[in-house]
């Protein structure tokens, strides 16, 4: 539903985005990853039409991005706030009217959401009277109230306590089930593995990786295994595998093996079987965090 094509954004001497392209599929949760300062926020600001790219194009449902799309996008910035002196209900009403909702419809929806998220009594409260977590709930409601097709959340879980983070996570999943597309921008990988279908990794203004989370993980499997067995038999590298690591826990031994090219796990097992009772064999699957660090470090060394 959203295609970003060859976006370049230059700020004076600093190039924030260098020829970045990506595709976000309808109904998916898309993770926009990258270290701080990589250009994530610059890209989001282009998608939300806060700024315009120097070159390149963005298409929303096949149409070139234009002012009509503003009401179809919901955006929760990383640095977010509310008017301190304004009542919560009025504030959310104002924000949703700016997105084009009518007063009556907006009021109805605010009441529905306030009820759902257990913030019924907050209508007449002022922001100064709410905790940070409570404020974030208000901001979340304001982001989704106009039922946008595309919801962009920049570091959505920072500042939430675990209970509220869970509530919000469930709301996100429910909205997603009902057809909303999400873009998550984050540098925290744990949330990505759980929620995202697809990701793009941006570092130093360039996209360095993108695709489905499963595929990426598969691609980064490198035939390494953890094997746990009884006894303190020690194995050494041979022509089937290389021993990367050996740990002894009580009377068990844990080894991390890297298979040599064209070898399979069975061959490694048959090497060990004569010497020990095998308890467990796990493939080492890289976490997104590992991949992230590997890619980012790799690029930084170039």
């Amino acid at each position: 539903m959203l295609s970003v094509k060859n976006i370049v954004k230059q700020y004076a001497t600093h190039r924030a985005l260098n020829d970045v392209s990506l595709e976000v599929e309808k109904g998916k949760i898309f993770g926009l990853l990258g270290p701080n300062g990589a250009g994530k926020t610059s890209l989001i600001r282009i998608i939300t039409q806060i700024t315009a790219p120097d070159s390149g194009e963005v298409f929303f449902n096949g149409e070139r991005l234009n002012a009509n799309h503003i009401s179809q996008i919901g955006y929760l910035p990383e640095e977010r706030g509310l008017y301190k002196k304004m009542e919560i209900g009025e504030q959310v009403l104002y924000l949703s009217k700016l997105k084009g909702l009518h007063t009556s419809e907006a009021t109805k929806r605010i009441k529905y959401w306030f009820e759902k998220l257990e913030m019924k009594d907050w209508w007449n409260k002022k922001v100064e009277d709410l905790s940070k977590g409570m404020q974030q709930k208000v901001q979340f409601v304001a982001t989704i109230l106009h039922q946008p097709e595309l919801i962009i959340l920049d570091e959505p879980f920072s500042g939430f306590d675990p209970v509220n983070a869970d509530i919000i996570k469930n709301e996100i999943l429910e909205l997603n089930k009902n057809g909303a597309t999400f873009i998550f921008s984050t540098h925290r990988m744990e949330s990505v593995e759980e929620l995202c279908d697809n990701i793009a990794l941006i570092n130093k203004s360039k996209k360095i990786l993108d695709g489905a989370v499963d595929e990426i993980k598969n691609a980064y499997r490198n035939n390494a295994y953890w094997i746990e067995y009884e006894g303190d038999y020690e194995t050494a590298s041979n022509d089937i595998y290389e021993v990367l690591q050996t740990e002894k826990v009580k009377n068990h031994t844990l080894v991390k093996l890297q298979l040599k090219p064209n070898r399979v796990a069975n061959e490694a097992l048959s090497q060990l079987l004569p010497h020990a009772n095998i308890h467990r064999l796990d493939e080492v699957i890289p976490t997104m965090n590992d991949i992230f660090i590997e890619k980012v470090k790799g690029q930084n060394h170039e």
Partner: protein
Amino acid sequence: MNKILLIIQREYFSRVKKKSFIVMTFLTPLLIAGVYALIGFFAYKGIKDTHDKVAIVSANKTLTEKLSSNQNVSYVYIDKSLDQAKKDLSKADYDYILYLPEFSLAAPKGVELFGAKQPGMSLNRRISGDIEELIRTQKLKESGISQTDLDKLKTTVDISTKKIAETGKEEESSAGASTFIAFTAGVLMFMFIMMYGIQVMRGVIEEKTNRIIEVIVSSVKPFQLMMGKIVGIALVGLTQFMLWIVLTLAISTAAVSLFTNKEDIKEITASTQAQTQISGANQMTSAAPQGPVADIQKSLAGLDVGKIIVVFLFFFLGGYLFYSALYAAIGSAVDSETETQQFMLPVMLPLLLGYALSLSVVTNDPYGSTAFWLSMIPFTSPIAMVVRIPYGVPGWELALSMAILAVGFVATVWIAGRIYRVGILMYGKKTTFKEMFKWFTYKN
């Protein structure tokens, strides 16, 4: 367009509903009325105070004319010895004893004034003036001029100023009233531009430090937000202005009618009129407020009040737009109000300069070249023009000044808009003018 309206609404109502706005709106006219009442009170008290009672002990046979009381000093001749009079001073109903010894009219010497308090310079001058006058009258009489001839010598000249309008019609005008209105308009204009300009700046900083800005600019264009804020606050200003005019009029009318019920007022008016003839128009303004008020009322007919108000409103809106756009740009460039100083100075300076020059040079010479140029340059024209307008300004000058101001505010709004859209999203960097110029040159 609809969104700008929403923003204007929010900016307007969030301010108008504030307690401080309501308090300010209702308190200020009361304060102004209070200050006037205070001035009136002191002026009145001043007149009473300066109305000293002087007992005269005269040992003078040469001087046959007698000192007669006037509105400053009342003289009573007492038939006591100087020593007795001195003794009685503390319980007597006179404040001072004037001792006139025997002297020749050619060299009047030895006049003494005794009092429980140190007599002021002005009393001293008044009494000596009265005695000099007395001696002069006597000398004139001695040289054979009759009382009727003497009376004929006294003449009072009242100049009534008339301005010839472009139409050739002569209009009654009063330099005093024009100056009064010019000052009031100039001070009000300066206050309004400053107050509301700074409100715009605060509003921008608030949105930036609240970090709500990014949510809002994902719904509306930064320019819409800036204009919505500026227009919303302008409406707050106009509301306040209108309320002030209405309330001030109501309160001062009430106060004046309350005041006039008292007997005192007649006394003041009478003495003011007497004083006017003697000491001229200058003292009148400082001594009693009723004088200029009546004066203004009289010559308001000569001034085109409707025109003055319309011009004032135009230049208020124009000047406000011109400056508030700059204030908005400043607000967008900083992270907190404490950082605004370095940018405030260059914006404040022309405004202050315009203010100071308008109230001094322009009121002295409202048709001079300084006045002309000040009322053309958009940085100073809002103040200079409203100061000039009560004295009358040629139509083409007014039109030109308005046109320049209009072009001026379109330009500042445009420039500010370009700085604003970048500035509001910049955090944590200390902004310089160079940086602001760079923002200005950014594409989108």
